[in-house]
């Protein structure tokens, strides 16, 4: 009887998360959203419309990884990554590999594949924002499974930043962002942008309740 009690229904098996042997990456500024951190060897997605703080959050995660002396990579589909912003967010640029695929989604996916299989990276950011839905729909789902297989049991995190969900069932964390309020300071003639308030909802992960984040303008 004791053996029978340990049996599980087969359909439940994939939903049992496998414990990673590596310590999760815990960005201090995102502790409210990821209280247990971002699991190593998994795919995390951050998605939302323009000005929802997608890139800001990705840079925070990269900053956390690079200050821990991890080598990270950014695969930039539309050459929109700003090293100046990254440096002001705390990213150590000397620990970063930047790949610009100049709008070629196939090259971006292949570059991600090569980097993930090379191993040794802390975070690999695949930035697919602003890409046409037609182009993104052409990426076969099998690629995301391939990525998941490449990084499992490794300390690498594949961070996907896009307008909508891409990796679907392959990702462990899906964070949806929505712009809420733009904060300004001063009167009409001498106005200054102070920051941006966004709503963050963790669709897949431990916490489901929405959190409000304030993204402060760099000095």
């Amino acid at each position, binding site marked *: 009887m004791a053996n029978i009690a340990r049996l599980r229904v087969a359909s439940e098996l994939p939903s049992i998360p496998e414990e990673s042997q590596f310590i999760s990456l815990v960005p201090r500024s*995102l502790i409210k959203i990821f209280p247990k951190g971002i699991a190593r060897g998994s795919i995390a997605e951050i998605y939302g419309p323009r000005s929802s703080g997608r890139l800001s959050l990705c840079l*925070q995660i990269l900053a956390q990884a690079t200050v821990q002396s991890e080598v990270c990579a950014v695969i930039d589909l539309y050459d929109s990554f700003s090293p*100046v912003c990254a440096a002001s*967010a705390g990213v150590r640029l000397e620990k970063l590999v930047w790949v610009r695929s100049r709008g070629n989604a196939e090259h971006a996916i292949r570059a991600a594949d090569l980097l993930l299989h*090379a191993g*040794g990276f802390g975070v690999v950011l695949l930035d697919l924002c602003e890409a046409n839905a037609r182009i993104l729909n052409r990426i076969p789902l099998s690629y995301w499974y391939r990525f998941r297989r490449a990084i499992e049991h490794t300390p690498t995190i594949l961070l996907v930043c896009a307008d909508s969900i891409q990796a679907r069932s392959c990702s462990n964390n899906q964070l949806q962002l929505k712009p809420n309020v733009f904060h300004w300071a*001063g009167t009409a003639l001498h*106005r200054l942008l102070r920051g941006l308030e966004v709503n963050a909802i963790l669709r897949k992960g431990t916490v489901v309740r929405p959190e409000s984040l304030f993204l402060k303008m760099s000095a």
Partner: protein
Amino acid sequence: MYACLYASGCNSADLLELALEFSPVAEQTSGDTVVFSIDALRRLLGSPSQIVSELCRVGYQRKLQAHLAITANPDTAVLLARNCPGVTLVNPGEERLKLGPLPLVALFAHGLAIDPDLLQVLHRWGVKTCEDLAALPEQGVAERLGNSGIYLRNLACGTIQRPLRTAGIATSYEERLLLEHPLHLLEPLLFLLGRVLTDLCGRLRSQSRAARLLAAYFELEEKKDYRCELEFPVPLDESRTMLKLLQLHLERHPPEAAVVAFTLCLAPVEPRRVQDGLFLPPTPAPDKLQVTLARIAAMVGKENVGTPRLLNTHRPDALEMTTLAVQPATPIENNNPEILRLAMRLFRPALHARVRVVKYAPKNVVASGVKGNVIQLAGPWKTSGEWWTATSWSREEWDVALDDGALYRIYQESQSREWFVYGVYD
């Protein structure tokens, strides 16, 4: 037993040649002094006195005027050859006796790394000769003079035993292969390149060296030459990695005609020695990373892969791409701030925009992928710089919130009065 030849004013190459005729293990301590081992000669020539006479005979034939000393250790041999004229043969155990009358200056001339002020200290103590120094108690010398004092005392006693520092054999890291027939295809050529590279890397490893640069020189059928140089970010000694990098280069830039001969040359450097920490994050393997980045560069272009480096200027988006230098991870204090910084996603190049301006302020913005009425705005902020160069800029920047729900930075160029969308806050 060791023999030392000292000949002032003699050609150092002649002296070394004479020593190498008797022993393959020879050390040239200076231009006029050579010390070599004679242990193996005892079975060939006989006793030390017979070796001395043979050495004198060969030296006389070569018209070399040199002083010779034979002792049980190389340093004593050098000291006696340099300070005792003629032939000095010392039986084992008699070194201290023979070295005794030598002045202390001789020891200081022998050991170049010894502080010369020590000689004055010893003179003030009344120590003038090697015999005086050897008579001092070892513990007392160690307490007062440290390691240098102990070394000098052992030198004066003739008890320092050390292996000879022989000069390494010069190794060539260049190989030329003349083909029997011209090769048009890359695959058979790579097969031959791989064979030569394996040989060259074997030579590198045997000398504990690695290569930072691979130069390939191809002689082509139509009497043309093709040369390529691959510089590695970290020293390599793996032929497979080098071959892969060479293959990726040749696939991108193939030779114009069939190859009839080629020469490969490696520039040897000290290998990369890294001690990784047990609790530090892993970094990509440098050789594997080079191949990966070369593969990506072959796909997206070399200028699109690298590590960004900010330039020392206020010019917007001023940066250059450099090669990633994989350094071992170092523990760094986690000073990542808890404040979330708002980042900007750039449009490269900036989007040309049509902007409707009312009372000097933008009211409507239309560009490729951007369209909307301005709800809120901040600006203008005037920026300019580098007016003395071709990269000068002068513009008025605005932060605008459009009714499409996004926040943009737009600017108007001061000279052309044209509007552009620089980026979107994201």
